[in-house]
């Protein structure tokens, strides 16, 4: 093998090895309303609404709890959306697929935050009522 080709192969291997170690961080998500009461929500990472529903990324559905998520940082920042949901008898009545749907159906505003690897582990979202909602 020619030296230049060997060097290229080695560089590619190094790059692949580096790419294989995507940093992850465990965050704890929670949501309350302005009266400081727990608010049921769906936690959506990087706009993956289907994945969030499939992985059951809900918080405060069955009482006051928090959701712990291990998040890989494929970029410097990840985007987390907290989408309010309505709950009846411990079950989510409708799983939103968009921010607008979450807002319109729940009567609460959604919230989005861009998180970095070295941000605080606990992420609390305080959701306001939608204008016109009592």
């Amino acid at each position, binding site marked *: 093998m020619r030296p230049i080709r060997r060097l290229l192969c080695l560089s590619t291997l190094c790059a692949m090895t580096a790419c294989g170690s995507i940093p992850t961080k465990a965050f704890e998500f929670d949501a309350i309303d*302005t009266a400081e009461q727990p608010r049921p929500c769906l936690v959506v990472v990087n706009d993956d609404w289907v994945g969030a529903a499939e992985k059951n990324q809900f918080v405060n559905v069955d009482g006051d709890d928090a959701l712990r998520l291990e998040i890989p940082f494929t970029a410097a920042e990840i985007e987390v959306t907290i989408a309010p949901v309505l709950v009846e008898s411990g079950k989510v009545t409708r799983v939103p697929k968009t921010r607008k749907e979450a807002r319109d159906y729940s009567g609460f505003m959604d919230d989005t935050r861009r998180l970095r690897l070295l941000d605080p582990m606990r992420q609390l979202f*305080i959701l306001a009522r939608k204008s016109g909602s009592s």
Partner: protein
Amino acid sequence: MPLAFAACGGAGYVRVMSVNPPDASVYINGVRVGQGSGRPYTFDFSTTERIYVQATHPDYQPEIEWFTKESIQQMIDANLDVKITLRPR
């Protein structure tokens, strides 16, 4: 003189926090630290690069502000308190 100084030798910075309305609740990094205005709070950057402060009140829109060590240091240099003003709903 406002109570605004870097804690001795550590990563903590003590700043006075003012919230309006004064009976709003204050959270630092998602943990409720109290209610009311004009109280000193410690900003500890030993485990994080950024710290977020939230204030909430039932009759107002909640607010969030993010701080870095540099932004807090600038406030200390300028002798500024942390002020969060909520907008009525």
